[in-house]
């Protein structure tokens, strides 16, 4: 007894940190590896043709911009075009008025990505009066 008391006097018990650091590093590596950053999303708003709007349209007919979305591309003013061309056309039209209604007509077999591209171009030039028709 006397011997033990002499041994402990003045010494704090030592804690071995090595295994803890090992575990903590393992956890750290696990979290770094499993961490996956998420994409930043955006929303593109549009309206479907509503019957309640009809009266307003009759009273004050707005300018209409028709864009047809087909599987081969976009048809604007009767001309088939790709996205950069459509971008230029919309840019030119947005110079006159951004409140004009853009009517986007989609064929049933057109890919959804084309519709998103048209909506994105319209949003780019602040054309916010968008309406989607399905044909």
């Amino acid at each position, binding site marked *: 007894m006397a011997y033990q008391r002499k041994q402990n006097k003045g010494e704090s018990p030592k804690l071995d*940190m090595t295994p*803890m*650091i090992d575990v*903590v*590093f393992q*956890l*750290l590596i696990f*979290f*770094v590896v*499993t*961490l*996956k*950053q*998420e*994409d*930043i*999303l*955006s*929303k*593109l*708003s*549009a*309206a*479907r043709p*509503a019957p309640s709007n009809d009266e307003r349209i009759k009273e004050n007919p707005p300018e209409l911009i028709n864009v047809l*979305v087909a599987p081969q591309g976009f048809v604007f003013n009767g001309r088939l075009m790709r996205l950069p061309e459509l971008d230029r056309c919309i840019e030119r039209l947005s110079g006159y008025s951004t409140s004009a209604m853009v009517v986007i007509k*989609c*064929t*049933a*077999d*057109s*890919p*959804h*990505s084309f*519709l*998103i*591209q048209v*909506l*994105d*171009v319209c*949003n*780019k030039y602040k054309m916010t009066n968008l309406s*989607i028709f*399905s044909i």
Partner: protein
Amino acid sequence: MIDVVFHLIIFFVVTLKMTTDANPDIVLEDGKHGVTLTQDNMPPSTLEIELDRRGRISIHNATLSPDMLTMIIKQRIARHNSNEFPVHIKADRRSQHDQVKRVMDICTAAGIWKLSFVAVQEHKSQKSDSE
């Protein structure tokens, strides 16, 4: 050093979202010019409808039949007493328009005219190369 390491671990535990309830198969089209979706402009009443490339309709990755979706939208309109809550359609870029039209028609039939499509503004994760 241990203090710093513990801080890092706590940071990662807090920021890590282990499971996502979104459908992982959906590849969204780029839409750089849309309105950025943040926690602030996405109120809890937002209805997010997912549509994968095969035309499967889901909410939080739970598959729904068109009738069930109609019921959910109608219940929501009744609960909020208006059809003004935001409806986001998260459709795969490879899906056909007639599949998207089905979802839009369900919304329109239930009385919702204003719809938003979700697109990717900025890619943070590795872009999927499955076209």
